[in-house]
């Protein structure tokens, strides 16, 4: 699949009614499901529910930069993604949140990040081989995470199981790219730039090895090519971030672009292609035991 052309901007939707937290457990970013409309006057209400991460100066805004940039790059790589938008929260809405103390931080008026809420999914990651409609999707997500230095894809809900096929096996959608570049703190303080050169592959996902043993490295080679091609989308991905967020988070765009290009140049090493090919050669013709 060729890498995809990106739209230059993310659409804006307008928040008008909070619904509830995404999960009823304490999470780091406390995303909320919020009703949003396409129009600022909410004439098209009820509109659609979005999962919104609210901007918080410093690390919080860095997390949203990571979301916007990596959402774009995943699209450029041809991976499935959730529908994303910049979510506009008006003064009154922000005041309502703060008066109600819905969350334990101040909600700022302005732009935040959201993805369209999908009720037709199950939070992953996948627990069994039988759940996978296409095991190579796991390889592609992992390879993308290697490029983007995603440390937390194994976290509950950071892969969604969606669109079951006729056998009840799911397709995978990467969700939550707030902690790429070794974490939002690392992005915000710039330490990711120094660490990137020594940083290799992303943490292995369960079932990844089996995917290589059973399916080989075709998808991995393909991803190495896609990563090379996706560097052309880096400027657009960065442009999608609202200008004021860069200053708010104190993240340097040029450093981020340089990091992405540098890692793309080393993709074949970062993706450990030799190792996985070696595994395939060593196990060729064997039978896999599921112990």
């Amino acid at each position, binding site marked *: 699949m060729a890498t995809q052309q990106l739209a230059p901007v993310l659409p804006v939707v307008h928040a008008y009614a909070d619904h509830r937290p*995404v*999960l*009823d*457990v*304490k*999470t780091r970013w406390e995303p909320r499901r919020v009703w949003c409309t396409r129009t600022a006057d909410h004439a098209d209400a*009820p509109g659609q529910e979005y999962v919104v991460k609210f901007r918080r100066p410093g690390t919080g805004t860095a997390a949203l930069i990571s979301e916007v940039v990596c959402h774009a790059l995943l699209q450029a790589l041809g991976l499935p993604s959730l529908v994303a938008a910049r979510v506009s929260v008006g003064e009154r809405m922000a005041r309502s949140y703060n008066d109600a103390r819905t969350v334990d931080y101040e909600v700022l008026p302005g732009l935040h990040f959201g993805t369209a809420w999908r*009720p*037709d*999914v*199950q*939070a992953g990651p996948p*627990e*069994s081989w039988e*759940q996978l409609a296409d095991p190579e999707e796991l390889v592609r997500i992992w390879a993308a995470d290697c490029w983007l230095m995603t440390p937390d894809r194994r*976290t*509950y*809900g950071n892969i969604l*199981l969606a669109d*079951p096929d006729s056998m*009840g*096996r*799911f397709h995978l959608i990467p969700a939550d790219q707030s902690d790429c570049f070794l974490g939002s703190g690392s992005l915000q303080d710039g330490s990711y730039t120094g660490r990137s050169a020594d940083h290799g592959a992303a943490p292995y996902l369960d079932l990844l090895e089996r995917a290589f043993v059973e399916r080989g490295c075709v998808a991995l080679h393909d991803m190495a090519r896609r990563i090379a091609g996706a560097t052309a989308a880096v400027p657009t991905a960065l442009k999608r971030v609202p200008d004021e967020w860069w200053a708010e988070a104190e993240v340097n765009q040029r450093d981020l672009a340089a990091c992405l290009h540098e890692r793309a140049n080393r993709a074949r090493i970062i993706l450990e292609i030799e190792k996985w090919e070696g595994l395939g050669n060593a196990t060729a013709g064997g039978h896999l035991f599921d112990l």
Partner: protein
Amino acid sequence: MLLQADTFSTYSCATLRCLVDPTRGITVPVGVVLWSRADRHPRFRLPSEGERIEDVPIQTVMPYLRAAQTQIEAWLRRGQLPYQTEPLESLSDRWWEHVRGLMQFTVQIDPPRPVDCVRPDEEMETLFEALVQPVKTARERAQRIDGAVKAALGRQYVTRFKRQQRAPGFRGRPVSVLRMAEGRNAVVVVEAVNLALKTAERDSDTLASRLRRIQENSTKRKVRLVLGYLASPGGLNGEGVLKDWIEHVTNTPMYDLTRQSAEFRRTAAEALAEAEDSLGVLAEG
């Protein structure tokens, strides 16, 4: 082999629900999970192939239900829940509360509740029927209750009570019954009702009426009733009053086909012996 009754463990259950109307947040019960903290392995009852639940497209929902089961079992194996911030004893109420908090997508879970359960493998089915209320045709309901009666009667007696018989009834109009054995002057009618189903009230009233017509039959035949029922553990849906009503109008005890199968079988055997003894007495006379 009759499974041992577990009279020591305490059980809890929770209903699995499926989001059928995301806009309005409407969920429908589709499955049950039953557990005892002593045995550590929750039992899941999900819809079977061909089973129907009102307003739920089962084929569409099944992958999500299986995924939810796989996920919960994996969390148990690992001994750790996502976003867990303090120790949680597996399968405790707080553990399930945390699981509920995580499952906020297509499949959701109701709060756990205690349940009076003695034979979990056998009672699971009636628990599912009571909490999920699957749609069953009259034929399916009949097969289900007859299956329970067969199991309770055991191999020794089940062949003595024939299916699809008609007992003598009020003013000579015969009454269809579940099973019956016939002696010369006595008839033994075996009947039962599933009180866990949505149709429990209607089925109970129908049964009570049919049994009264049999008791008030116009022939001189003595009729002995042997009555059984299926109910969710502890009579979750308040169906105890329906059983009491049948006993009241027929002046005949009813036996829980799962928990009182031995008593049910004994009563059937005694009634059969009495009916056959009538035959013997008459032959001698």
